[in-house]
């Protein structure tokens, strides 16, 4: 990818920026309301701290969850359609290599990984594609537990109602694990957060 030299390059297209922040809000609501829903009948031996949940009580959390699901799904579909049609996925995520991602993570941990604005390294490619897949699994497993009769084929594909609940939980856990790294890097690596708002690289090269 060759950018302009004099004027700042657009490294994040407007469509990607808008869907990114809409998605960020939707995920924020889905995860925090989902934690409150989880607490109503914990699958595992713990509950999420109430102060880190949304909705106040089960009905409120469900209302948030089933409102924000539309935002998450419609925004996600728009993003997928854009990514496929515009060539954004092909340009940004291909080629994809687990081996390359592993090497990049090792480089990054030694502080040797260069961050080139506008170009995803191998680790970013794998993580971004991975989290997109995790969101898709979260939505499908969510539909499976929301409609185990009407969408019973989907529920069966997810291993049945009780298994689908666990799939939904681990999809959430994958997304949250991604977010810990993603947000950690976004606020700590110099000059990468602002372009997600403005679209432009901070220091044109």
């Amino acid at each position, binding site marked *: 990818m060759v950018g302009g030299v004099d004027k700042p390059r657009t490294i994040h297209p407007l469509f990607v920026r808008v869907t990114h922040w809409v998605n960020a809000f939707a995920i924020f609501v889905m995860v925090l309301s989902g934690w409150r*829903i*989880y607490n*109503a*009948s914990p*699958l595992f031996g713990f509950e999420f701290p109430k*102060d880190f*949940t*949304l*909705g*106040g*009580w*089960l*009905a*409120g959390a*469900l*209302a*948030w969850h*089933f*409102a924000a699901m*539309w935002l998450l799904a419609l925004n996600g579909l728009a993003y997928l359609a854009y990514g496929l049609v515009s060539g954004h996925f092909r340009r940004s995520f291909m080629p994809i290599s687990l081996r390359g991602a592993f090497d990049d993570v090792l480089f990054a941990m030694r502080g040797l990984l260069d961050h080139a604005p506008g170009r995803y390294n191998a680790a970013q490619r794998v993580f971004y594609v991975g989290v997109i897949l995790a969101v898709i699994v979260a939505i499908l497993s969510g539909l499976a*537990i929301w*409609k*185990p*009769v*009407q969408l*019973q084929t989907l529920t069966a594909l997810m291993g049945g*109602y*009780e298994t689908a*609940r666990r799939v939904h939980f681990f999809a959430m856990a994958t997304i949250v694990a991604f977010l810990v790294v993603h947000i950690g890097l976004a606020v700590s690596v*110099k*000059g990468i*957060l*602002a372009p997600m*708002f403005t679209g432009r690289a*901070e220091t044109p090269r």
Partner: protein
Amino acid sequence: MKPPRSERLSAFRPQIARLERRLFLKQGLSLGALSLLSGCTLKDDDAVDRLLFAMSRFNDRVQAALFDPAKLAPTYSEADVTTPFPFNAYYEEKDIPLIDGENYRLQLSGLIADKRPWSLGDLRALPQSSQITRLVCVEGWSAIGQWRGVAFRHFLERIGADLTARYVGFKCADKYYSSIDMPSALHPQTLLALDFTDAKYGYPLRLRLPTKLGFKNPKFIGEIFVTNDYPGGYWEDKGYNWFSGS
């Protein structure tokens, strides 16, 4: 000239903090339960509450459109039945109402041609069918139970209920109440159950429909009515989604 990065970043912080405060304030407001989505009679005109309420009504319509009257819930074998079957109500198990089956009469009202009350013997004289299905609670847990009784469609036809009406409502001996849409009431697996896995949880009569969440399966039914006026429900009026289909 661009300000340094840290300054521009910090420009977002008050907004983020405000957003967070607002979101957590919502949580505070809805704590103790009842201000959020307070049923049909929204007392405060908070924009977020109104939006969530509108989305819940929208989800009612989506679920009604998604509902396939011919699609049957998966059934299980007797070996799959959950024992003990979990007790669940808005009160504790020790407070379940004790009803005298001998003198029990099911009352009927609303858009029903023949409103004569029914004794348990009358109900048992009707054709009985049974099902082993999964009950899914709004809390997330599920349990497999067995229910036996009268196909609700048959009963509604028998009493001359207006099958074009929108709602069937239930009033229960434990002061619980709920309502369902007519298409769900007419679903082949919707049962007016007389016998069930844990009979004391609902004796002598409960509704069983595997196409809706557990709280839409009222227990200890004392009266059934048919209406076109939205009847709401105990949990529905507190903010739970009304359709709550499975």
